[in-house]
């Protein structure tokens, strides 16, 4: 069991934000230089990704030790990626980040494609976060974006097919490796994923792909969805009492349904609730307040810090 002297470069997955965001599983070999992976529900063992989308936010954060950290969000048709660029990044990457931050500040939209490493971390309380660390990135045009979308969709479809095929088989590497429907690069990841995530629902990924393909095909009107409820401003001046409470109950319903859907026995972590509620148009701040409210009401409880369950 001798490790090879230098690990080969890990291949990059074309992946939509929804698949990466849903991942909570991490794997790393025991060796010092072994690569680490985030394993998605569809069985991709992700060390590196090619992602693209609209740069939605990019801000500089001062960290405790005085280093600079840029944090940003990249939105594709399925959701957002969170990424960060620190002092460790290459000069070119940092320079691009500065340029992009300026563009964002003046309200100049940019489509960005990045090759990024997957990051996974768990807080002391047990909440799991994933994010990206771009290695190289560039500003792209709509055409390149559309091409990226088709590749990401094709990749997701291939993984969904392999995932569906895996349901028919014993969740072992042997059984998967022997199957023609499961590509070799998904065998390990699928075994791990099946054992960790249990049942998963492909419906959301299918919707993401359909919408993403609409965009790539230029059918913008079919890719357009109804206006989401957007709670950007905390105080809604115009809203009357009735509307306020209805919004509140929307959020309440939304938060409860997220927890119900995502709970696999251990509850749902704080970040997952917030990012999912955010994807449905509720601000993180409101969602956080709602979690507190629901906890106080005794509708949900927190078996572990940062993990929420519905009181049965």
């Amino acid at each position, binding site marked *: 069991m001798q490790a090879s002297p230098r690990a080969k*470069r890990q291949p990059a997955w074309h992946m939509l934000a929804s698949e990466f965001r849903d991942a909570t599983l991490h794997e790393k070999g025991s060796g*010092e230089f072994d690569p680490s992976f985030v394993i998605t529900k569809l069985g991709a063992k992700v060390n590196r990704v090619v992602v693209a989308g609209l740069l939605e936010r990019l801000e500089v954060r001062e960290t405790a030790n005085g280093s600079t950290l840029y944090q940003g969000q990249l939105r594709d048709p399925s959701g957002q990626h969170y990424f960060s660029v620190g002092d460790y990044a290459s000069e070119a990457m940092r*320079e691009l980040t500065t340029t992009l931050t300026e563009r964002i500040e003046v309200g100049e*939209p940019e*489509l960005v494609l990045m090759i990024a490493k997957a990051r996974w971390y768990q807080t002391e309380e047990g909440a799991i976060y994933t994010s990206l660390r771009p290695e190289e990135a560039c500003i792209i045009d709509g055409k390149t974006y559309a091409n990226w979308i088709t590749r990401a969709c094709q990749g997701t479809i291939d993984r969904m097919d392999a995932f569906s095929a895996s349901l028919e088989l014993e969740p072992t590497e042997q059984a998967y490796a022997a199957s023609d429907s499961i590509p070799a690069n998904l065998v*390990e990841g699928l075994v791990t994923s099946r054992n960790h995530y249990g049942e998963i629902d492909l419906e959301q990924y299918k919707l993401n792909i359909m919408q993403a393909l609409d965009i790539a095909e230029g059918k913008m009107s079919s890719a*357009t969805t109804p206006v989401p409820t957007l709670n950007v401003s905390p105080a809604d001046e115009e809203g009357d009492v009735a509307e306020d409470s209805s919004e509140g109950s929307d959020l309440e319903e939304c938060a409860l349904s997220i927890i119900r859907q995502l709970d696999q026995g251990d509850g749902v972590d704080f970040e997952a609730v917030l990012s999912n509620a955010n994807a449905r148009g509720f601000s993180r701040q409101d969602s956080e307040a709602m979690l507190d409210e629901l906890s106080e009401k005794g509708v949900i409880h927190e078996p572990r810090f940062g993990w929420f369950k519905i009181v049965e």
Partner: protein
Amino acid sequence: MSDGQFDSYIVAVQKECPDADSETIAAQFLKYQEDFKIPPQDSMRSIIRSLNSTKAVPSSRASSSSSTPRATKKVELLSELKSDDKEIEIEVEIISHNLREQTIRGEQKQIAFGLLEDNPWAENGNKNRWEYKDWAPSPNLAPGSIVRLEGVSVNEYNGKMSLNINQSSRVVVLREGTRTVVAPGEPQDIAALPSDGYVCVVGRVLSSREDQIHKKDGSGSIDIVRGRLADESGTIGFLSWEPFSHEVGALIKIDGAQVRTFRDTPELNFGRTTKVELFHDKNFADTDTLSKQTVLTISDLRDGSRDVDAVVQITEWAKRTFTKDGVEKYLWSGQIADPSGRCRMSAWEDLPIDENNLPITVKLKGVRVRAWQGIPDITVDNAGQVEILEKSPWEDGIDFSTQTIEVPLNELASGASRVGVSTEAIVVSVREDSGFIQRCTECRRVLRDGHCATHDANAGQSDIRMRLVMDDGLASMSLLINKEGSLALLAMTEDELSSEINSNGQLDFVQTLRSKMLGRNIRASGRTIVDEQGGMMLADSAELVEEDAEMKATEIRAQWGVN
């Protein structure tokens, strides 16, 4: 076109930004949609932000409440463990088990230590080994047993993780120690042999000849026997340091042979402790059947291969003379090809080949392979190894010398070095030393800060190349494009390139390249060099592949069959 389609969104935006007029907002939505392919539900937030950028509220969660009691952490793989995990439950196989006396707090105690392996029920699969220490040696731990450990903890020392089996831990035996170690006396298929270690093999002798190894220090030579063995799974060369008298065709069993890998080719070594005996098996494949396996195509050739048979087309053949130790010598060398690719061939004797009447097809027998810069070079030691064929096995008139073979990147990355190949993959990196480089005037290696690793400070010679990484989702490979290929890809002359870099700077130039290339499909042709650190393609041409996303999306949708 935009008439009315964004109305509901404009209302929503105006609710957040009452001062913005609907024209401006509509124009924004249209811009996102047309230029960036971002539908309104996705661009809305950015538009609100840019109109009203003062209201960013950072969300934080500072409260830190209950600390939950640690429950048992049940894991399947060692890789799921963190350095401070306690009360772990895991099923493992015990690989080795040793006892030793240790003084702990002034007290002599016996402890056990060894290696364990996770994922014990998987036949092969991914297994990880960790060291363990058993502080109160359990009688249940024995090499080869599969056990469930309960209440063990992780110990991290100098970044290395191991498991502690504590006084309070429980060891449940799930399978007694009956590990089927590939024991001495258990023959393995030749194709499945490891690249090093001691093995047992049953095979037929395909070739055998006496040879000598001359010691480098001139202190003499050692008599050895070289040859080749085969079973139905494959063939392997052998080298016997002891007298070896079995004839070609003999079926033998070799126990305790050592596999050594020289260059890229594994070889069996028979030494003093190796047992070689005749073996009887009427059903074992005969010599004729087995020797068909030694016929290789050019794409199969590996550095260090011996006893290779092949049918190839010679496309170029020329005599080279050189002087060694004051004596003029000569050697023939040229290009050969078959449908799987191209490579070189050299011969130390005159062959009955008319270099003015090429291509011709020849059958090679028992030749060996060396590689230079990763490219296989077949060495013909004597004319008897070459037979000129009247008729080639391929269609008449095919000239392989200019062919380029399309090979998937992941196949190139895991195979041998090859010439005359092309592939298509996504650009995932543009290295910052793309552009002008200085090469050593002696060896053409790239200079670092004006220095060559072997020839020291150097004036250098200017050259142009691009260094990318391409990736097909399964494997990745470096892509080095030479001067002509780079300039053609950039659609620039050398002067234009030089003035662009001089006026905008190297970093800006590389970032421009990234904008053009990252995430795009590139098709490159040239040759590859593959070693244990990965593969690279040395390309003399490369082009970005134009793609029609709309058509591809429609195609994907049709194939997917979900509407």
